[in-house]
């Protein structure tokens, strides 16, 4: 094995180890994708994009584990205070898509139910720990669920650090 080849192997081992450590520490999105990577959207589905993307960003399925998506889909008649029901065929298509591309459940709790809000996951909180609560509350952002307020290319599923602009609150 050449020295160069060997160093590549060592480097890839190092990267794998680093990713594993980060994952264990809960710093990665549940899917294991690198948090600041350019793509958080490994797959797409027309029904998911149109139905889940009307009132809010069509949140990438990797951001919640399968049990969470099943619970979300079971409660669409009272979806965070609104009626988001879809017909049974569309619901089945969307649920299959979400569950197929769901993230891993890294902190299952035997007592509490599945997390329904992405903003309550450890991954989300870690990624946004430098954002002041007042920024989330500002009228320009209007809450942590409004990804597009800061993530400029959210409609293309891009959440890269280079594609963020936090709006300044008007005095």
């Amino acid at each position, binding site marked *: 094995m050449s020295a160069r080849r060997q160093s590549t192997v060592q480097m890839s081992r190092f990267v794998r180890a680093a990713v594993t450590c980060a994952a264990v520490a809960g710093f990665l999105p549940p899917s294991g994708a690198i948090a600041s990577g350019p793509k958080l959207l490994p797959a797409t589905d027309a029904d998911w994009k149109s139905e889940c993307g009307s009132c*809010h960003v069509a949140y990438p399925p990797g951001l919640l584990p399968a049990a969470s998506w099943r619970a979300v889909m079971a409660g669409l008649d009272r979806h965070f205070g609104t009626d988001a029901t879809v017909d049974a065929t569309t619901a089945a298509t969307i649920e299959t898509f979400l569950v197929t591309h769901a993230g891993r459940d890294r902190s299952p709790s035997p007592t509490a139910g599945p997390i329904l809000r992405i903003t309550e996951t450890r991954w989300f909180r870690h990624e946004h720990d430098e954002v002041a609560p007042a920024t989330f509350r500002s009228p320009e952002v209007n*809450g942590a669920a409004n990804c597009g307020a800061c993530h400029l290319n959210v409609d293309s599923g891009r959440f890269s650090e280079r594609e963020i602009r936090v709006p300044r609150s008007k005095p």
Partner: protein
Amino acid sequence: MYDRPIARAFALSALLIAPAALAVTPADIARGYAEEAKQSIPPFSGFSAARGKAFFESKHGSEWSCASCHTANPVDPGRHARTGKTIAPLAPAGDAERFTSLGKAEKWFRRNCNDVLDRACTAQEKGDILAYLMQLSNGGQR
């Protein structure tokens, strides 16, 4: 237009059965609601844009009105009251795709009437809202 009962029944069933396959206009959808309203309210006397506007802007005793998300001038883009996401204009004059699918119109009436009124809207109410939205023009409210 529908002077024979059979033609009327056909037009209505075509609207109800094959919404996805059928290219419809806002006026087609309004006619469907008129047919429905005639069945349920015998002295049906047509739709009113003024009544639709009042209904659209009323909170009906709850937290939101239709205008909370779609604005009081629905030719303009709206903003979701909770998430802040931009919503395309609701009036056909602001977005030509609005009310060109009966399935989509029915889905959103079902959801949003439930959000605002905590019940389904009647054919009369839906027709009034549509009458209001259809008479809006790009230059603002007439």
